[in-house]
């Protein structure tokens, strides 16, 4: 429970940090989805904690809904579904090293964006969204994904470091399996 709470607090702080930095640096397009990295970390660091991880996903999605001004529920649902897929993948992929962390984060952001776009297309009428306007957004998503890949290793390291400091079992089971000592 403490791990889930830590994931949630760090995720929320990172969302606020990205918003603040975007304001100071004048960025609008290439903003990273730090929540996607937190979600990937939650899925890959404790493969057995499905329920707590899913609760973190729903809560993080809800915070993103409010921060991004999205209709409440859209990102919560896409985060939840993405978490289930990542959790399933966590049992099959060992994450070790910066490149794998970046790759897994890319997978997370791609999943979240794909599911969000799908939800927006499906719910365009009830949410009063002009579906034609969603197409140009798809082009911008590559920058979103690239920015996320670039921030994934430091964010992942920050999470690992925090869990080590607070003795919350920082080393992932995947890493433990591969640690030949």
């Amino acid at each position, binding site marked *: 429970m403490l791990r889930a709470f830590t994931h949630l607090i760090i995720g*929320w*702080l990172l*969302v*606020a*940090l*990205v*918003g*603040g*930095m*975007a*304001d*100071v640096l*004048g*960025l*609008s*397009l290439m*903003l990273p989805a730090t929540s996607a990295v937190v979600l990937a970390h939650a899925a890959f660091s404790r493969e057995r904690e*499905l*329920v707590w991880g*899913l*609760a973190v996903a*729903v809560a993080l*999605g*809800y*915070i993103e*809904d*409010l*921060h*991004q*001004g*999205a*209709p*409440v*529920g*859209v990102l*919560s*649902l896409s*985060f*939840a*579904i993405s978490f*289930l897929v990542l959790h399933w993948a966590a049992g099959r992929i060992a994450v070790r090293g910066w490149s794998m962390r970046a790759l897994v984060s890319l997978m997370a952001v791609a999943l979240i*964006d794909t599911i*969000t*776009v799908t*939800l*927006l297309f499906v*719910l365009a009428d*009830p*949410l*009063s*969204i*002009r579906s*034609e*306007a*969603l197409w*140009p*957004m798809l082009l*911008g*998503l590559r920058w*979103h994904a690239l920015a996320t890949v670039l921030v994934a290793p430091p964010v992942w390291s920050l999470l690992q470091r925090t869990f080590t400091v607070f003795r919350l079992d920082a080393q992932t089971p995947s890493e433990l399996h591969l640690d030949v000592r």
Partner: protein
Amino acid sequence: MAVSFHSVRNGALVVILLGIPIMMLRASAKEPHEMGAFDRAIRRIGAPLEAAVSYSFGMLGGFFERWVLQARLQDSNEDLAGENRELKQQMRDLVQLEEENAQLRRALQMRDRVPEDMIPAERVGVDQSPFFRVINIRIDRGNSIAEPGMAVLAPDGVVGRIDKSFDDYSDVMLITDARSKIAVEVARNHAQGILEGNSEDSCIVDVSKDYEVQPGDIVQTSGVDELFPKGHPVGQVVAIEQLVGDQQRLRIVPSVRFDRIDVVWVVLAAAPEPDPRAEQVEPLPQSRGLVPIR
């Protein structure tokens, strides 16, 4: 295959957790502008947090810039370079002051120019989403002044309208958002249409082919939707596409640079109706009793 209690319980919890966002989505489709007490509480914590981070980063950036500058100056003549640095700093302050002055002057001019009842608001958050074009503003004038649907203007033109509001803070849906729809007209020939958000920096509007429209034409609010006051610039036509049928599609670039606005105006109420008797000179009532001495 035996099913354990543990896996049944986990399955039930997963279904419940997945049900929460679906319920929220259902509620938000029914009442898109409604914010619950919990939503407001979360935003009340989140919005100042973001503003504080913004402020801290600004301070940190300023400190870092000054430190780097100072380190370089130590390599050269310290006196001369120190004087130079002070002068540069003063220049920077002056340019900043000048810019602030110009912005405030334009804001004040706009206040005088526009007859509607408006209130200034400060931008506190930026558009963060790849899907939605929303900025956060803060009205430092007590609670619950702004309401969903209210128009938001800047000196350069229309910004958008308030989507959600809580305490001092409001989400402004920009005119480029996919959900945005406002009534507009081409200023030159009054060809009317509904402007819809299209991408990060463009909108589209379909107007009748009966009107001749050229690139460069100014598009302004028509006031038909009773949300936006009439005659405020929205953008400029940059491309025209002939559609099948009797419509043509105009691509509009907004007149407002959304990443550069600091102060916006929220329209609280429409302008009062002009007094039809204002021009008429009414005869003074005849005096009775005392008359002036001539």
